[in-house]
């Protein structure tokens, strides 16, 4: 706690540095400047009491329905472009979320996998490219897993006791490119995958020679990489081995700073230990992921035992025998994607909580490669929650604290008295974006609204097209934090009157699960945004 408190005093410098390094925050401030200078905004800001009375898109009376399949289809031009640059689309999603039956199609747009201005054709090209990139990452994961398994075997045969069943398990992994063969047949949409040519190279040989640390890089130009990629049809296309095609960088200005670069990969992934630690924790978390998702994906819930076990073996999952097939399958998908992500973004790697964020995505998105890129889109912002230096989490706790301070000085003074003004008690809500406090459906509803907000900011929507909406509530990167502050403010009376320690507030926050109304929360958050966004 002392560390946290210290961070309050140092927060101006740390938030400065983060805003200069993160175009997301930079964008937001640009947006606010634009907003502040626009006449519409000025007139509405002249009276804060007026602003307070403006109905939010989530107020009960105005609460709109979800984006329906018919509406979704009608939003596209004949060549498959979203009309009006997606303005209407985002507005609709922002006010009511997305119908479950079309989430699969809609999320890649919300999460920035597809540009809002892209044509159907462009998206198909991108999709193929992205699929290959994901598969390259997966192959690297398998090589690394193989290496760590080998080193474990060496250690075990060298002396200490080895458990009986690990031998047979390792044989499964030893067979080259087992997962490729399996996943090509196994994927829920297998027709879209190219089966790989089997090859007999020892998957680890290139890495095992010489210095492990310097060879275990994901540099596409490294010899190990070339050997692997020559098996796929992507070998002679330099663009494919580049994880960040220039087309996307152009579309997404946040890309460069907010996402990991290849240089980072090389410099950070020096030891295999880091990655093997992640691999270990990922597997532990995957087999204990909750089962809430099952009702939302009947196809995956009905997966066969054989298929589930094949996919589990393909990613080297252990200790899953006690699980039902659908949970094994879910766990295997979590492992595959989280591991690929750890490699893709080694600055973050894997941190507990990330599986909470991925689980709803793989429930909705049935193809691993698509789910992976949606997750990448989600993590562009959420990755800051998991940073080792904790700058992201501290900034956010600080923001929640400021919101409470400006909105309710009485409550804030009470928190100060309890030495709880750092708002540490909302830590869990911040880090996994309400996933632990809300039901599956509620979480998705909130996230969709949040994603639509972020997509709007990303696309620079807000200058004119959204002037009306902006008056009500400007899209903010921090919508979630306003919602979190709202959840605390909803309990202000209790906190002030009954609670005399931070522990008690923490317990209150931890027990919010099942007692929250998302749309009320968003409505309250909206009021906070309207009244406070220029102060925070």
């Amino acid at each position, binding site marked *: *706690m002392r560390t946290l408190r210290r961070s309050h005093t140092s927060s101006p410098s740390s938030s400065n540095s983060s805003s200069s390094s993160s175009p997301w925050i930079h964008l937001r401030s640009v947006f606010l400047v634009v907003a502040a200078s626009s006449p519409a905004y000025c007139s509405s800001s002249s009276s804060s009491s007026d602003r307070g009375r403006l109905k939010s898109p989530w107020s009960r009376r105005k609460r709109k329905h979800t984006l329906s399949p018919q509406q979704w289809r009608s939003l596209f031009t004949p060549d498959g472009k979203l009309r009006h640059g997606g303005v209407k689309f985002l507005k609709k999603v922002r006010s009511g979320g997305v119908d479950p039956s079309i989430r699969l199609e809609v999320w890649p747009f919300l999460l920035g996998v597809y540009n809002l201005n892209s044509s159907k054709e462009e998206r198909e090209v991108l999709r193929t490219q992205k699929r290959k990139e994901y598969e390259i990452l997966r192959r690297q994961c398998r090589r690394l897993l193989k290496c760590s398994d080998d080193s474990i075997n060496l250690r075990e045969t060298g002396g200490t006791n080895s458990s009986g069943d690990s031998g047979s398990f390792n044989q499964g992994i030893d067979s080259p490119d087992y997962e490729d063969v399996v996943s090509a047949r196994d994927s829920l949409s297998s027709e879209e995958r190219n089966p790989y040519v089997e090859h007999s190279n020892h998957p680890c040989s290139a890495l095992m020679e010489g210095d492990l640390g310097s060879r275990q890089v994901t540099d596409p130009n490294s010899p190990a990489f070339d050997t692997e990629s020559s098996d796929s049809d992507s070998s002679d296309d330099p663009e494919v081995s580049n994880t960040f095609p220039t087309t996307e960088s152009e579309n997404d200005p946040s890309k460069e700073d907010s996402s990991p670069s290849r240089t980072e990969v090389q410099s950070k992934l020096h030891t295999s230990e880091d990655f093997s630690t992640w691999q270990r924790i990922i597997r532990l978390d995957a087999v*204990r992921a909750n089962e809430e998702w099952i009702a939302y994906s009947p196809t995956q819930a009905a997966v066969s035992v054989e298929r589930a076990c094949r996919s589990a073996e393909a990613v080297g999952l252990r200790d899953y025998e006690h699980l039902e097939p659908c949970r094994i399958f879910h766990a295997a998908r979590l492992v595959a994607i989280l591991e690929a992500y750890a490699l893709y973004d080694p600055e973050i790697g894997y*941190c*507990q909580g990330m599986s909470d964020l991925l689980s709803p995505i793989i429930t909705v998105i049935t193809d691993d490669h698509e789910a992976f890129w949606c997750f990448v889109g989600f993590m562009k912002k959420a990755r800051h929650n*998991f940073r080792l230096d904790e700058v992201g989490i501290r900034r956010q706790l600080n923001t929640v604290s400021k919101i409470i301070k400006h909105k309710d000085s009485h409550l804030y003074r009470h928190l100060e008295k309890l030495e709880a003004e750092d708002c540490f008690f909302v830590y869990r809500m911040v880090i996994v974006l309400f996933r632990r406090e809300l039901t599956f459906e509620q979480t998705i509803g909130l996230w969709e609204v949040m994603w639509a907000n972020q997509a709007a900011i990303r696309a620079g929507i807000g200058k004119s097209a959204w002037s009306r909406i902006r008056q009500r509530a400007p899209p903010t990167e921090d919508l979630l934090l306003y919602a979190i502050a709202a959840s605390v403010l909803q309990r202000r009376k209790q906190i002030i009157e009954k609670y005399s320690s931070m*522990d008690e507030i923490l*317990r209150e926050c931890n027990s919010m699960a099942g007692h929250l109304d998302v749309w009320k929360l968003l409505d309250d958050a909206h009021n906070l945004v309207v009244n406070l966004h220029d102060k925070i």
Partner: protein
Amino acid sequence: MALCTEEEQSEDYLFKVVLIGDSAVGKSNLLARFARDEFYPNSKSTIGVEFQTQKMDINGKEVKAQIWDTAGQERFRAVTSAYYRGAVGALLVYDISRRQTFDDIGRWLNELHTHSDMNVVTILVGNKSDLKDLREVSTAEGKALAEAQGLFFIETSALDSSNVAAAFQTVVIEIYNILSRKVIQTQELKKEDPAWMGSGKTIVLHDGNQEVDGQAKKGGCC
């Protein structure tokens, strides 16, 4: 405690005890078993911190153990200092079926010593003793490490309940005993009063009105 007045006998004690150890060694399930007699075979990883307060009867006196639980991943630093602050007991947990978790005990001990007082009553807990066939860490090894580090030692199974209550009781009784005979420590605390609050020394807390009363009690008791 025989020396305590009648007034003090009616007071509650609240001891903060922390659970630490690698991911998935069973920290949350030890707590669930102890506090609610529940067990979740696939409980999710803990995010942030959670805690439970459990009443215990020690020598006819009601003692409350506030048991804190957190994620096993080292990365959650922001949690750390809040987590250890004020802790007087610790359960240092590993999984007898995964050697790695035992190998990491040294790291957790360092962590504990960095963030709290050396006097924190600590027990080394080898959990999942029901997994006999998968055992990778022998009881003797666990015992030896505990002796070398001056820790209590016990093997537990949150799954079949064995020794779970005993593990917590060992810690809480020891804290209680130390407190009962700590006239010297009390005087020491008086001397360095300002530093005491944050240093994680033995804290006795009144029910409800916590730190202030706890401190007052320190001064007044015995």
